[in-house]
């Protein structure tokens, strides 16, 4: 990448770590029809809005989805709206002895956003507030064929599907109406997404990260980083929109960057996300360095240490290693092969002096050197 090209990193890293609370812009773009562009108009109907999010222990959101949901709910709460979280836990499914640590942690993290504007309900408790008549009336609103399909092979397709799935749709609708929902946040495609009084915000399914390299005991920030780095390229824009989004201008840059350097783009996005959720950009970069060390199968101690004395240029420091002759080194610098792995999009110049302790410098594909300041 030439130095003159716009760097996504400049944009990403320099984003406000707490995204702006421009709800009209932010939410307006997230909503599917029928609210869509009319978000502003609709959002003025009633304040505060009631947002419903249903969490099912048998279909827990993936790590990335959990961060997306938390981020979006935070936006709603910070904009003064009320959130109701309905939890379909093991008690709902009749297994009172089972627990889910992931779900408990996630619910606690959501509650931690705001104790006054976020209310958590157990679906098994709410079930007692809805009678058979109401459930029936809700189910009347769906056509059976829309739920289970029709035509040949339908029976076979539904052979393992339980009737509970169907009742659940009716129950959810009854519940939304009882809770006077304005917005329902769903994860993945919802069956029911057309209602005159309710807007549906659908977060796309973000697959669980594959090939995560974390060793046991990885921190949550490392897990998030790895999850982002491992998402399929086609999901990246979704993650970006739902977890970072600020303004449309970034999307063009993102698309270009994603085409040119998908892995690097993901790393930068992961860095920003880690920064957003775990204490700033410094933490984000630290997580990235740790991740790259793990990927390389090395810890920082495994890299060849190179002294970077005061007054030195990077060229001087690298030349002192005798790994390359000075002419070879000049050629490598000129070819853009010398980079800081924390910021590998930008080739370093021979006179570079901005080196921090434990910065890892990559020279070509062969060497990685740890700078000791």
């Amino acid at each position, binding site marked *: 990448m030439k130095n003159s090209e716009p760097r996504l990193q400049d944009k990403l890293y320099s984003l406000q770590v707490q995204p702006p609370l421009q709800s009209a812009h932010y939410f307006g773009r997230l909503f599917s029809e029928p609210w869509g562009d009319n978000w502003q108009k609709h959002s003025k109907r009633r304040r505060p809005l009631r947002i419903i999010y249903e969490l099912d222990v048998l279909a827990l959101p993936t790590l990335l989805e959990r961060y997306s949901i938390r981020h979006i709910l935070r936006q709603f709460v910070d904009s003064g709206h009320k959130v109701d979280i309905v939890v379909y836990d093991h008690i709902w499914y009749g297994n009172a002895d089972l627990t889910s640590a992931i779900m408990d942690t996630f619910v606690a993290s959501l509650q931690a956003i705001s104790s006054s504007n976020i209310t958590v309900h157990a679906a*098994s408790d709410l079930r007692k507030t809805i009678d*058979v008549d109401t459930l*029936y009336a809700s189910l*009347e609103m769906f056509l*059976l064929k*829309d739920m289970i399909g029709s035509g040949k092979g339908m029976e076979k397709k*539904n052979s393992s599907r339980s*009737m509970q799935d*169907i009742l659940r749709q009716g129950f959810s609708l009854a519940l939304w109406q009882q809770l006077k929902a304005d917005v329902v946040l769903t994860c993945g495609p919802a069956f029911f997404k057309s209602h005159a009084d309710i807007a549906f915000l659908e977060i796309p399914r973000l697959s669980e990260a594959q090939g995560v390299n974390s060793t046991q005991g990885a921190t949550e920030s490392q897990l998030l980083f790895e999850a982002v780095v491992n998402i399929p390229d086609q999901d990246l824009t979704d993650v970006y929109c739902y977890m970072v989004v600020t303004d449309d201008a970034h999307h063009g840059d993102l698309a270009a960057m994603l085409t040119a350097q998908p892995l690097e783009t993901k790393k930068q996005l992961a860095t920003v996300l880690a920064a957003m959720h775990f204490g700033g950009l410094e933490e984000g970069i630290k997580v990235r360095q740790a991740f790259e060390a793990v990927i390389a199968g090395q810890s920082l101690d495994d890299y060849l240490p190179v002294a970077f004395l005061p007054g030195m240029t990077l060229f001087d420091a690298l030349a002192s290693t005798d790994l390359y002759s000075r002419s070879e080194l000049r050629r490598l610098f000129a070819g853009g092969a010398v980079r800081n792995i924390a910021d590998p999009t930008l080739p370093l110049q021979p006179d570079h002096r901005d080196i921090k302790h434990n910065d890892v410098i990559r020279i070509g594909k062969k060497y990685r050197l740890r700078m000791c300041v």
Partner: protein
Amino acid sequence: MAQTLQAHLLQQGLVSHTVGAVPKQPKLAIVIWAKHPPRLDNAPLITLATIIGNQKPTIYVDDTAARVFCGRTVQEQEFFNNQYRAYGQQHGCPMFFSSELYAQYFGDDVLGALFELAARTSVSRFMRCLPEKKTTIFDTLPSSETMNMLLELLLFEQVSRGCNALVVRHFTQGIVLSHQKVSAKPLPAFVVPKLEDDAAIYGYVAKARKLYPDAVHPANTTVL
């Protein structure tokens, strides 16, 4: 139950067939949907159940499903329930209403019981239970149609607490079969043959009385 009686009933055409393993000492129940006032076509069920069980069957009246499907208030349904109470007394049959049973067993969590039952019931089984006339208009059926089956199964579950066999009409056997698949206490059933009109019903009851004059007959009614 003596095997000969079952064979005789089948031979005489009083029983079309049986579903499931019939118990030796059947304690019979009849399930009636309280959508309409008590009707003539219950008479063959009571007559047959009385012959087989040698005592009056227990009648389970599904007033919950009827009320929900007809969109009635509790008070409106009570009008029909009172007619069924009188009907039960007239025939000397013990009677239970689904609304009372659900309140007794599930309190305010009837949906909990319904969901639990729904979890054990597959969609394909529901499809097999749909009457033929409904399959032809499947594309227009609302999903509330599923509640028909589930509420019926839920009542069968309550029936199995007090009785061990059913006497049913022809069109109910699909539900009986489904109940056998999903229940820990499946109920076998004696299926009454199809009776097309009132004359057939009168004929059935008269034949049963003639063949089994010593059975505990239903009390005198206008139709019998």
